[in-house]
């Protein structure tokens, strides 16, 4: 029921959706996050810890499954080097009821941004390299679920 994955391979949204959805759930909510090319971004690199990052995703998925009555939950995060347009993260949550699927999906993407060991580094076309800073708005959204 819970499927969590972290790796450097491209995320195939349609294939993941098909795998997630084999049960034919009443209500399915999804979130897809992509690399934005704004500001001359050339590469986005996601740093992670091979063991602890996956453990953090699993803990988050288990928390969602404990909070809501879910039929299936998929949480996939890509790491390593990515180009604008690439999919970084995919969240799929299904339930008999739409409210639970929607809430779980939003919870997972919000808390992912503050609770899981992942760090974004941006490289721009002009050669500039910068680590992405934590955003106060992300922290505020994550704290709604405390």
């Amino acid at each position, binding site marked *: 029921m819970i499927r969590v994955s972290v790796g450097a391979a491209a995320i195939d949204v349609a294939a993941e959706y098909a795998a997630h959805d084999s049960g034919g759930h009443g209500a399915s909510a999804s979130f897809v996050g992509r690399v934005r090319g704004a500001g001359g971004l050339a590469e986005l690199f996601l740093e*992670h810890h091979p063991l602890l990052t996956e*453990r*953090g995703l699993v*803990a988050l998925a288990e928390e969602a499954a404990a909070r809501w009555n879910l039929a299936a939950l998929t949480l996939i995060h890509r790491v390593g080097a990515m180009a604008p347009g690439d999919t970084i993260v995919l969240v799929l949550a299904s339930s008999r009821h739409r409210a639970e699927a929607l809430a779980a999906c939003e919870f997972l993407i919000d808390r992912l*941004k503050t609770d899981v060991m*992942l*760090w974004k580094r941006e490289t721009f076309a002009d050669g500039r390299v910068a680590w992405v800073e934590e955003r106060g708005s992300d922290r505020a959204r994550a704290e709604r679920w405390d």
Partner: protein
Amino acid sequence: MALEIVYFAWVRERMGMAAETVELPAGVATVGDLVRWLAARDERGARAFAEPQRIRAAMGGAMVGPDAAIGDAGEVALFPPVTGG
């Protein structure tokens, strides 16, 4: 006691290494103590840990605060606030 310290992101870059094993000096009991000790140890530490409020830590895969006791954790990870998703 030997402690493995793992660094990530700009903390790793400023320390110039991804991990090290240190012998904990007496008086370093908490994560906060460890950060202060590293900041005082050398120039790289001073640069990486100049702003302790921007440092996060994990032990055993779970995020912990500066007051967390290191005890016999064996490994502590130090890093900037996470920015995934």
